[in-house]
């Protein structure tokens, strides 16, 4: 299984979590994601996800002027997005707990 397949779905939750820290724009979001160790995914991957999250009303956007270049789109979470983040955290905790347990019991690859 490739990294990208494994990341699908998880990336959504991570984006929600980062946006929850405060209003961000696309480039900033990609940079933050990278700083947490998501280096293999190309930066543009976030945009299709952001478009979907906007359609599903998880995030809202506001356009602000930037000094050099086009207007900048800032993302923030909606109440629906916050609920989804909460649900993601619970799902993730459960999943990572189970995966941890299996890996620890079965031990390392011999």
């Amino acid at each position, binding site marked *: 299984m490739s990294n990208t397949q494994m990341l699908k779905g998880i990336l959504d939750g991570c984006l929600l979590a980062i946006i929850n820290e405060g209003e961000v724009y696309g480039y900033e979001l990609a940079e933050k994601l990278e700083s947490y160790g998501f280096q293999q995914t190309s930066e*543009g991957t976030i945009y299709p996800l952001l*478009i*979907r999250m906007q*359609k599903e009303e998880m995030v809202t956007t506001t356009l602000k002027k930037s000094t*050099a270049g086009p207007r900048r789109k800032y993302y923030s979470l909606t109440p629906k997005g916050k609920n989804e983040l909460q649900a993601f955290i619970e799902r993730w905790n459960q999943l990572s707990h189970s995966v941890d347990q299996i890996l620890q019991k079965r031990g390392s690859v011999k």
Partner: protein
Amino acid sequence: MNAPKHTLTAASQDFLDNLSLYLFSSGKKDKEVKEIVEELEDHLIEAEKRGKSVSHIIGHSPKAYMEQLSNEMSFDFKWLSYLPIIVLGVFAYVLLGDTIREGVQFTLLQVVGYPAVCIILVLFYLKMFKFLASTKISKTKSITTTFILGTLPILFFLGLMYANDAYKTPVVIKLGTTGNIIAALVAIAIFIGISLWSKTWFTIVIPTILFLPEFLISLTSFEKETKAILTISVLFVTLIIYNVYTFKKAKKET
């Protein structure tokens, strides 16, 4: 546009242009296309300032990335309404030409053929734009393709003309004097209507250049040959004047 702007590298600008064309020919909503292109432009500017390449942003397949974006965006049903309008435009054009010359007379083949050719051409163009936007081809190849795409409508309509001569299908519409005047008025109304709808002068200027001199010359009492020569020369001169004018105007704007 606001003044001091970071200029993107050719590779990035190419990608943005191709993305617009790809999404546009996939029938995505105008506003959504503009938004995502603007957002990626901002991202690419920031990334280039830090020395990152396009492939760092979009991955190694521009086509796959364009598809990913396209899949999340909504189809604009407004595009479907363009088809009948283009058909209507061509219809008005043919109609007006006929009223000036030999009078309106359509065979069954023409009645079916004109709309069919328009629809085939439009669908084909959309497919080709989408293909060209997402595929890398050499300069010579893209010039050849553009040339072929440009001559295609002429070939189709000439083909229809010849087919109409070769296969005699029954005449289904034939108008008398009053009918022709009404037809001309309808055609002019369609041109004005499309012009208002599209908010461009194009569908008024082009038919005027093409038909007004011919119409005025047909009213004179010159010999048939003189009329033909006059029509062609006037057409030639006005088209050149119009081209120079639009070229100068476009240059002024940039």
